[in-house]
């Protein structure tokens, strides 16, 4: 708990106006933007330079991708709702309602799990069964890389949220504001994961 003696872990810095954790998570998100930026750059680069239709290496048409906008759309809505529950969890904690906050966190974790289950059971699994594997062509390569990396981020989010629901919730009883801050940081991360999906959905499913 050595962190506790450091200044501005909980209270905002009077000049910069933020507590350290929040600044830290924003910087981390900036690096995440560049990580996904590298992959989006690869997507644009490969798609612009793709071979002409007819070659097996050509960019597949919309029909050839066999990606269902219905499943993708449902998952988009699931993530959006989870973002709302996440921000509601923070708001409830800020209004000193721990039970409600915890309930919203459970909801967020459940929605995130739904997202992953839908992704794996209704998208990845049938794709693999039909031989639509990453090696099929560069569209599937980048599709699996992008959604896989995004899925890992969702999974990481679930782990963090469960940590704060279960063992991490002890912090609430020691320092309410500290706990609320940590949920805010988790929320920032979670909204970012949602935000990435907001771009992934049209780019992969609709264009």
């Amino acid at each position, binding site marked *: 708990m050595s962190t506790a003696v450091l200044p501005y872990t909980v209270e905002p810095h009077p000049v910069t106006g933020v507590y350290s954790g929040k600044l830290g998570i924003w910087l981390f998100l900036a690096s995440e933007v*560049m*990580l996904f930026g590298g*992959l989006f750059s*690869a997507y644009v680069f490969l798609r612009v330079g793709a071979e002409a239709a007819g070659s097996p290496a050509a960019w597949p048409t919309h029909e050839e991708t066999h990606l269902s906008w219905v499943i993708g759309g449902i998952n988009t809505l699931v993530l959006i709702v989870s973002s709302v529950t996440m921000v509601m969890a923070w708001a409830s904690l800020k209004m000193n309602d721990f039970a409600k906050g915890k309930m919203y966190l459970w909801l967020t974790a459940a929605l995130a799990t739904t997202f992953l289950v839908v992704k794996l059971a209704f998208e990845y699994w049938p794709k693999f069964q039909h031989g639509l594997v990453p090696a099929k062509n560069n569209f599937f390569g980048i599709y699996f890389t992008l959604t896989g990396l995004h899925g890992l981020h969702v999974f990481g989010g679930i782990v963090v949220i469960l940590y704060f629901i279960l063992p991490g919730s002890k912090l609430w009883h020691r320092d309410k504001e500290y706990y609320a801050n940590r949920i805010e940081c988790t929320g920032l991360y979670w909204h970012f994961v949602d935000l990435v999906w907001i771009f992934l959905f049209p780019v992969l499913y609709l264009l």
Partner: protein
Amino acid sequence: MSGHDHGSGRGGHHDHEHDLHHELGFWRKYVFSIDHKVIGIQYAVSALVFLFFGFCLMMIMRWQLAYPGQPVPIIGRFLSDAVAIDGVLRPEFYNALGAMHGTIMVFLGVVPLLVGGFGNYVMPLQIGAPDMAFPKLNMLSYWSFFVGCVVMVAGFFVPGGAANSGWTSYAPLSVIATTGQTMWLLGMVFLITSSLLGSVNFIVTIIQLRVKGLTMFRLPFFVWAQFVTSFLLLLAFPPLEAAAVLQLMDRLAGTSFFMPSGLVVSGVPQDFVGGGNPLLWQHLFWFLAHPEVYVLILPAMGIVAEIITNNTRRPLWGYTTMVYSLVFLGFMSFIVWAHHMFITGMGTQISAFFATTTMIISIPSVIILTCLIITLYNGYIRFNVPMLFALAFLPMFAIGGLTGLPLGLPASDIHLHDTYYVIGHFHYVVAPGTIFAIFAGIYYWYPKVTGRMMNPALGKIHFVLSFIFINTVFMPMFFQGLAGESRRLYDPTVYEHGVQMIGMRKMSSWGAWMLGLSQLPFILNFFMSIWAGKRVTNDNPWEATTIEWLAPSPPPHGNFAKVPTAHRGPYEYSVPGVKTDYFPQFAGAEA
């Protein structure tokens, strides 16, 4: 700044915190420590070990270059048949040595030493902070680095040996390479993660934890250098992580991100579906690797600026200009990367763009160098060991920087690209440049870390020998490069220019081995001084002005007995009306 004191913390936890200090066992105190100073030492020692290891790899390569086809003396007999035949290196082992030398020196040696070591140890002290903003993250960063190192070095023991496609790992060669390349990529993922955690921590610490009165423009130049460097690491590294993931997919999942259609290797058409582009790897790689060059040089400039002002007893000339130059340098370093790719079939417009940004980025470097040299003017120059290394940095970095010019101009780059000229150029920047700054920093902050001085006589011997031999190693490379000798050649005597340049190569090689021997006084000094060094009589042996010299030597957990306050700029030397010739930042007005 308000009256938030570091000591006040969060009431109730303070006592609890105090108890914990006494309970820390060996593991928590020295191995899984969250104290920035212990982590800094862990980083520095690991990095020094890797620098030495990387240097050894190079000394083996130098034998093959000077005496191609002859068995390596002494160690040759210990090399297995997989890497050498009767002591003569195999070409694949030579290539692995080259790739791993580059990777180890850059990612396992210099960056962890400058940022992880010096940055971690010195920066929080210089801003008067009790620790980094996220101590646990700091520990995680080190251990992620450690895992990365283990994975990277484990590459030597997998079938086919370590990665042998160059430190740049250009696809498609790296995609069809042996298992060592997979280890390289996995290692990089861990190292990048470590860097990201570290850089977030650094930026937050510098923004949030400066003591009262220490405004941004009162920061020591070293802290500024760390600040800009952290932004480079934060924003430039992730694209390489993305590229590493893509290359792993190419290698393991059979995708063809970097594999165009119609590849025929050894007469066998490849299974890849194709449609990829090898240049995509180069873009993503150099998007990191060019800022990486500045990650290697900026903290070194920071160290040199600290030591030069301290030993000229004058304020840093043009502090503000230097800070702006530094920030501009950092910014521009993101948009020059494709000057590494001029001869990949690039057109006229985009090459003009990248050549122009490259010329522009040389201006702030010239400004910083000029400011450092002008600082000497009207000074009172003390030639102690750290100062000798810092002074040597200036002409060495000048050579390294200037020889970048013909490489940055596309027309002259045609002949010089991928020759020894390039090797000479960047080694002048990072070896007699950065490594000398590292030595300077070690000699300078050693008394703060251990409470004892290093032996100056041994230090001077170390300096003179290193200075002579490091130039013996790298100066010939410019002539080899101009003659047309390519880099990464197992046996350059295959070519006529290689035959003509054999004398130059022998000179380089003997220089390298002598340089290796010249490090013995340093190694001796480094370890002996821990026990036998002269004890410092006060906490500020160099009579310096920055806040780290207020802390006890060595500083305890929590660093400062009383929270310091900064009263003035970082380099108030020889101020008229002050008794001593230095006026520390932390000293009250009455001093």
